[in-house]
C-alpha cells in the first residue's frame, strides 16, 4: 500500500514536471515541425483531404449555382466571367485520431543515476508534447481507457487532469480496445512484459487495421547493466526477487537476453507493419519526438522505413 501510494506520488510529480517540460518542448517545436516537414516534405500535414467537396479550406471546384441555395454562396468573381453563376466548393477535410499510451506502471518510475529523468517522466513528456503537436496539426488525440479523442488546444491540461484523477490500476500495456482503421496508435512503454502479453496486445490493437508505433523507453542502466557484487534484484511490479552473487558476470547474458526480447517484439511489429524503436532516457526527448513525428508522417506517406532507430546510441 505504501509502495503504491509512493508510486502514485511519484507519478503526480512526474506528471506535473512533464506538463511543464512538454510545454517548453512543444513551444520549441516550430523548429521540430520544420525539421519534420523537411524530412517528410511531400507528406500532407494536418488535415487530410477526402477528395470530395465539403467543409474545408482548400479549393476543390466551381459548380453551377443551383437555385434555392443561399445567394451568399455565389462566387461573384468567377460568375462575372460568363453568364452563369458559380459556387466555389472546398475539399472536405477531416482530422484523424491518434491514440497515445504512456505506460505509467511502477516499473516506469525506475531511474538510475546515469539518467536525467525517470522513464515515466520521459514517457509523459513525449506523450504530452506529441499530443500538443498533433493537436496543433489538426489531429485528434486520446488515451485509451482514460481520455476520449479530442482536438482541444488545451490537450496537455486535459491529459494531465485525466491522469491525475485516474484511480485505475496502472497497466503496462494499453487495454484492449478497437480503434478505427485509420487511427494511429503510439505505445510508449518499457516493454519488459513477457513477449506473450505484448503479442496479444498487438494482435488486439491491429485487428481493425490501425497502424501504430511501439516505443521502448529504457534507462541506460537497463541497457548496460552496470552492477557488480552481490545484488538482489527486485521486480517492482510483481515483486519477484533474484539474487546475483556476482552481478558483473551477468552482463553479457543480460545484454543478449535484452537483444533477444527486442528481436521478438520487432518481428511482431514487422509482421503488422508497425514501427518499433527504443529510446534511452539519457538521450534528449526532442530527438524522440522528432522521430515519432516524422515516423508518423512517413507512415502515412506509405514510404515505410523499417526499423528506424532513433534514440539509441550508435
Amino acid at each position, binding site marked *: 500500500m505504501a509502495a503504491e501510494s509512493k508510486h502514485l506520488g511519484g507519478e503526480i510529480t512526474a506528471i506535473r514536471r512533464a506538463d511543464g517540460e512538454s510545454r517548453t518542448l512543444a513551444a520549441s517545436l516550430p523548429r521540430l515541425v520544420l525539421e519534420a516537414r523537411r524530412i517528410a516534405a511531400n507528406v500532407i500535414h494536418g488535415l487530410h483531404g477526402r477528395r470530395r467537396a465539403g467543409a474545408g479550406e482548400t479549393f476543390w471546384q466551381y459548380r453551377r449555382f443551383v437555385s434555392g441555395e443561399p445567394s451568399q454562396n455565389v462566387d461573384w468573381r468567377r460568375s462575372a466571367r460568363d453568364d452563369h453563376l458559380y459556387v466555389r466548393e472546398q475539399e472536405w477535410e477531416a482530422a484523424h485520431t491518434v491514440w497515445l499510451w504512456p505506460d505509467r506502471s511502477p*516499473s*516506469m518510475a*525506475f531511474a538510475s543515476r546515469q539518467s536525467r529523468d525517470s522513464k515515466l517522466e520521459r514517457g509523459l513528456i513525449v506523450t504530452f508534447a506529441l499530443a500538443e503537436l498533433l493537436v496543433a496539426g489538426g489531429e485528434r488525440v486520446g488515451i485509451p481507457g482514460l481520455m476520449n479523442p479530442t482536438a482541444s488546444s488545451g490537450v496537455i491540461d486535459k491529459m494531465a487532469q485525466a491522469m491525475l484523477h485516474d484511480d485505475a490500476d496502472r497497466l503496462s500495456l494499453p487495454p484492449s480496445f478497437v480503434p478505427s482503421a485509420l487511427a494511429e496508435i503510439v505505445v510508449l512503454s*518499457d516493454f*519488459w512484459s*513477457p513477449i506473450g502479453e505484448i503479442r496479444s496486445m498487438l494482435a488486439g490493437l491491429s485487428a481493425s487495421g490501425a497502424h501504430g508505433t511501439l516505443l521502448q523507453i529504457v*534507462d541506460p*542502466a*537497463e541497457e548496460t547493466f552496470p*552492477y*557488480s*557484487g*552481490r*545484488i*538482489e*534484484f*527486485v*521486480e*517492482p*511490479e*510483481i515483486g*519477484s*526477487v*533474484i*539474487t*546475483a*552473487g*556476482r552481478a558483473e*558476470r*551477468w552482463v553479457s*547474458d*543480460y545484454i543478449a*537476453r*535484452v537483444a533477444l*526480447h527486442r528481436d521478438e517484439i520487432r518481428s511482431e511489429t514487422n509482421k503488422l507493419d508497425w514501427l518499433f524503436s527504443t529510446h534511452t532516457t539519457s538521450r534528449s526527448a526532442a530527438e524522440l519526438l522528432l522521430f515519432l513525428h516524422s515516423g508518423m508522417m512517413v507512415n502515412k506517406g506509405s514510404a515505410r522505413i523499417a526499423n528506424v532507430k532513433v534514440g539509441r546510441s550508435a
Partner: protein
Amino acid sequence: MIASLPLSFAEPVLLLGLLSLPLLWWLLRVMPPRPRRIEFPPTRLLFDIAPKEETPSRTPWWLTALRLLAAALVILAAAGPIWNPQTGLAGSSAPLVILLDDGWSAAASWDTRVKAADELIANADSDRRGVALVPLSEPARDITLMPAGTARVALRQLAPKPYSIERVETLPSVERFLKATGNCEIAWLSDGVDTGRGPEFLEGLSKTVGDRGLTIFDAGTPPPLALAAAENAAAKMTVKVLRTNGGVTAGIVRAVDPKGSPIGEARYTFAPQARETEAAFDLPVELRNDIARLEISGERSAGAVQLLDKRWRRRAVGIVSGSTNETAQPLLASTFYLTRALAPFADVRLGDRGAPQQAITQFLDQKLPMIVLADVGTLSPEIRERLAAWIEQGGVLVRFAGPRLAQADDDLVPVKLRRGGRILGGSLTWEKPQHLASFTADGPFVGLAVPKDITVNRQVLAEPDAVLATKSWASLEDGTPLVTGEHRGKGVVSLFHVSADMRWSDLPMSGSFVEMLRRIVDMSGYTSSPGAGVASEAKVETMAPLRTLDGFGAFGPPPSTAKPMPVDFRDRATPEHPPGFYGPADGPLAVNTLAAADRIAPLDTSALRAQHASYTNAEPRDLRGILLSSSLALFLIDAIVVAMLGGGIAALLRRRAAPAALVFMFVLSTMLAAPQPSRADDNDDFAIKAVSQTRLAYVVTGNSDVDSIVKAGMSGLTLFLAQRTALEAGDPVGVDPAHDELAFFPLIYWPVMPGAPKPPQDAINRIDAYMKQGGTVVFDTRDAIEAPPGDAGASQTPGMQALRNILSSLDVPELEPVPREHVLTKTFYLLRDFPGRFNTGQTWVETLPRDDDDDAASRPARGGDGVSPIIITSNDLAGAWALRPDGQPMLPLTPGEPRQREFAFRAGVNIVMYTLTGNYKADQVHAPALIERLGQ
C-alpha cells in the same frame, strides 16, 4: 612482566584465545556480505538467465582485518592487561633488606625511589616478611628488622642528603646485620651515580651479600644532572653541567640573585657521549656579580645547585699613587684615570693614608686581591716582603711606570728595567712617538682589538734578555714592551711601562685601557684562588652556617648536625658542612655539593651477580577499559562500513572515489579562487588592466544585489560617456580598497550599505592616501527616499550613519552642498542639481575657498585649486545609470520626472569630467576676455 614493556596480564592464559584468530579470519572470509537490494524493472528477463556460480564476492580484506583487530582487542582485554604493574619481589619468605641510596644524586627521582621502596614493603607485608631499611648515607645507623608498618614510617622520615654519600662506609654494619640475620633478600634502590668510591663499594657488596638474592633497581629514572665549577670568567659566567651518561641532552641553567629573583638563563647542550658541558651566562658584570645561585631548571637536587658568594664577585682593587700632586690637580692625576677605568667592574679603594707605604700596608691588611701601584718608587724592605708573600699567595700587583719607578730599583716588577726612561719624539730623541703594535697571543690581552690611535711618548725600557718576549703582554711597534707581566706563585706581577696619567702616553684615556685592566682584574682571585692568599695568613676562623640546602636543593635552616666552617674551607660539602651559605648574612661564603674539580660517573653494576629491575614511575593502569572501548569503536566503524557497502556507497567509493575526489577538489579550488577575480594574486594583471584604459571604478560591497546594480550602473555611465563625450572608457572595475591599488582610477564610486562595517584600518589608510593624491571618491548612500523630512533629515538615514562611521577615521575636508557656481555644475553640461534614482538628496563637495573680493561674486564658476577629493550624495546615481544588457533601464526612478534619467546621466558625465579635467572649466569663463585680448 614482558621483557622491557611495563605491561603484565592478570590472566595470561586467556591470551591463548588469540590462536583462534586465524579461524575467525577464515570464517569472516567465507561469510558472504549482505546483498544490495536494487529495484530493477527487467528482472523478469534475469530469470531466464542461467544462474552463474554463486560464490559470494569476498569481504574486502581491510574489513576483515578490522574485525580481527576488534576481536583481538576483546581477547586482550579479557586477559586483564595492566600497564606499569607494581614492582615486587616475590617468591621468598626471607626478610627483606632495602638498601637505599639517599645522596643528592637520588634526590631528583626521590619520589620514584620512595614509591618503589613502599611497594617492596607492601609486598613484604603481604608475605609477612620483616623489613630492614638501610639508608646508605648513615653508616652509624643501627640496622634492625622491622614490621612493615614501622618500616613505612621510617621510610617516610628519610630525605635525600644534600651531599655526596659514601656507600662503602655503611657496608660494615650491613655485613654485621646480614651475619646476624642469616638468609635475607636484598634490594638495592640505586641512583646509578658513582661519586668516587663506587667500585670499592661494589666489590664489598658482592662479598657481603654472598649468595643471598640481590635485586638492583637502577633503570627507569632519568640519570641525575649536577653543576660544578662556576667561574666568573672574563666576559661571562660559566658553569659546568655534569651528567653520568645519556639522559638529558639539553636544558637550561638559571641564575638567581640572593632574593630569589631570576637574573638570566643559559642553555646547555651535551655532545653525544659527553659527560660534561658548559653553560655560559653572557651578562654584564654588574648582573653577574648579583648571581647568588645557579640551578638546573627542572632538576630538583642539591647537586644541581651552585651557590656563589663574594669570591665570585667583583674584586676590590687598591690604588696607591706615588706622586704627591695628586690632590692639587685631581683631574690630571693617575688615580683619577685608574679609578675611572676600574670602576665599571671592580671595587676601587684609594690609599688615603698619606704615604704609599701606609696605604699598601692598609690594603694588605684588608686582604685585597689586587693592588695597583701607580709610579710608586722605592718600597721599604718590610713592605716589599709582605707584598712578595701576598703575591705568592695569589695577590695581583699592577705597577705603572713614572719618574719615581724609573729611578727606583726593586724586584716587584716582572722584568729587569733599564735605569732612566726613554722619551720618544722629544727634542732629544731620534724616534717618533710609538703606537701600540700587538698583544701577545698567550698573554691576558689576547683577543682585544689593537687600538691604532695610541701614541707613547715615553716609557721605561726593559733590559733585553731571553725571557723578555715571554713576559711581554703588549708591545709597541718597535718591539719594546708596553705591558709586561709574570706569574709568581699563585699571584701575578704586572707592569705598564708607561705612567697611569697622560704625561707619558694617551693610553689611560683609551677604551683599551679599561679592557686591559679588566683582563688583569679577571686574573685576580676567583674560584680556584679567590682571596686565598689573602685569607690564609690570617688565623683560621670559623663561620657558622647561615642557610643550607636540603637534598632537593631548597634553602632551609641549617640542620643540627651542621658545624661551623673554617673560613678557608673550599672542599665539597660533607655531612658536617652541608652545602649552603656560611658566615655573616651580608657577605656569606658558599659551600657547594660538588667541588670545582668533581665529576660524576655512572656506577657500573653489570659485574655484580644480581637481578636488575626498573623503577616504575607511574601508577599501574588497568588497560581493559581502553581496549574494550576501542574494540567497541572498531565494531562501530565496521557497522558503518557494512551499512555503506550495503547501501551502494561502496560503488561510489570503489569506482568513483578518485575522479570524484578530483572533481570535488577542482570544484573546491575554483570556488575558492572564484571570489577573487580582480584580487591580488596577480597584481600585475590588475595593474595592466587598470592602466591600459581609463576606467571607472566602484567599491565592491559584498552584497551581490548592490554590486550587480552598481556594476551595471557604471557600465551604463561608461556607455553614455562614450556616446556623448570624447571619453571612451574601458569596462568598469570593482575594487576592494583593502587589497587593490587605487591610484589607477580617477574616480571611485562607493555605494554605502546601511550598517556596513567600518573598513579595516589598512583600507582606510589606502583611501586616505588615494584622496590625498588627487583621487575622488563618490560616496552614495542611495537612500534619499528614506530620509525623514526636514532639513537635517538627509543626514539621519542608516546609510548616512554608516557613511559617517566610514568617514570617522578619514581625513575629510570641510564639506558644503554643491553651490550653484561650483565648477562641478559646468564641466560638461550645465546642471542645477545631481539627480539619480531619487532627486531629493543633497550633493556635498569640499568647501571652496571663499574669496571675498568683489569680482568673485560676478564670476560664474569657481573651481578652487584642485578637485574635491570627496563627493557625497544619497540619490543612488548608479541605480539610475544601471542598464540591462538589452539597453533598457534596470530600475524605475522616483519621482520619475521626465528626463530625470537623462539628467542623472548628465550628472555622472559632469562628475567624471570634473575628476578628469579639474577646474579647467572654471578658467574657461575667462575665455571670451582672453580671446578678445589676443585679437587686439
